[in-house]
């Protein structure tokens, strides 16, 4: 079957199997920031935004995004022009292997899009479900807390 959707602002058409998950389809399109970690919605490394809401792409069928707008971390910053969230994480030393970062940054962006100065509680609510095996979370929280205090995301 064929689906049409907007990926990072550009229209895309893709031939998929009905059983194909969104993670697999995105990686087939070269979006390698979207990782398959647990493949059961527990780790957060596959999180993308669909119509403005973060979702676990490993649990979503690609067919479900027909007609939708899908955004991945590739849409929000680049090496030359990183997003303030990405800058904050780098400055705080909150990134080590980076496996979790694509999904985590999408969830962080969803919080800051709603409120440029989110509380610790809001950050906790929205970032729960992102597993990071390297940093122990302290640096991530610290980076986002500093960004929230500045209100410049």
């Amino acid at each position, binding site marked *: 079957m064929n689906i049409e959707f907007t990926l990072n602002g550009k229209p895309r058409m893709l031939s998929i199997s009905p*059983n194909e998950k969104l993670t697999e389809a995105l990686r087939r399109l070269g979006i390698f920031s979207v990782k398959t970690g647990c493949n059961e*919605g*527990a780790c957060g490394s596959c999180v993308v935004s669909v119509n403005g809401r*973060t979702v676990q792409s490993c*649990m979503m069928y690609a*067919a*479900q995004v027909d007609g939708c707008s899908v955004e991945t971390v590739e849409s929000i910053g680049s090496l030359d022009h990183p997003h303030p969230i990405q800058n904050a994480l780098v400055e705080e030393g909150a990134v080590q292997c980076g496996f979790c970062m694509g999904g985590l940054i999408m969830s962080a962006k969803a919080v800051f899009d709603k409120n440029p100065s989110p509380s610790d509680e809001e950050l906790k*609510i929205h970032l*729960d*479900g992102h597993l990071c095996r390297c940093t122990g979370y302290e640096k991530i929280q610290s980076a986002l807390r500093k960004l929230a205090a500045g209100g410049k995301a």
Partner: protein
Amino acid sequence: MKLTAYHRPATLAEARRLLVTLGPTAMPLAGCTSHSFVKGDDARIGVDLARIGYDGIAHANGQFVIGANARIADLQEYHAPGWVLDRVALRFVSQPIRNMTTIGGNIARIFPWNDFPVALLALNATMTIAGETERKIPADQYFDGQPGRLFKEGDILIAIAVPEVGESCGFSYHKETLVHMDFSRLTVAVWLRREGKKVADVRIALGAAIPLPDRLEELEGALIGQVYSPDVVAGAMGAQLAKLRWRSTDVWSEEYAQQLARVHVADAIGEAYRAAGGDRK
């Protein structure tokens, strides 16, 4: 389960026709977050219900009517006097999962860890199923076994009506997990109405630590008409809890589950009682 074809009906009528035509091979799809727990390689045809509507929350005549396609995040973000399901939603897994899972999906097929059946039992909700006629099914009947037994081919759950938690009433919800976003290991929901210091009415539901969510009706009966005190609750609880069949898990025994339930049920009743007296409802 493997999807071999996928349909996305735009209306309830179209969805019903598809389900009838496809028969048992049809797999109604809502948020799809529970699909990784459906084992087996049987071929199914997906019928995605996401675009047939029934995704809002309406408030009128002392009750909230929630469309079955409303996401858990919608329940989390909704606020109105007498609305308490935001508290249940907030403890539901993680934000991306709350953004995907629908309340209809969470109660159409019950896994032991599902969160909403317990809350809906305590709140005396009513489920509406669209079939040849529209049927309204009270929570006590709906959750008295797997809901699938109530669905004929082509039937679709379309709405859940939940009464407001009104004056002199309180609600409490407890969820025990190993880590915050873990599956529920034990859930307790209590709705309570008081008259002065007496418990005028109460509905207590327990889940996750027992095979299917259930009300503690014997305990409810023992509390109604009594002046509330922790001692009254403790005295009434033992006999009821001893009769339940408890689930052991990888981390605790049946006996531990029962002891933990004793603590949570007592605390939840106390909180609902205080809320009914004017603390946070």
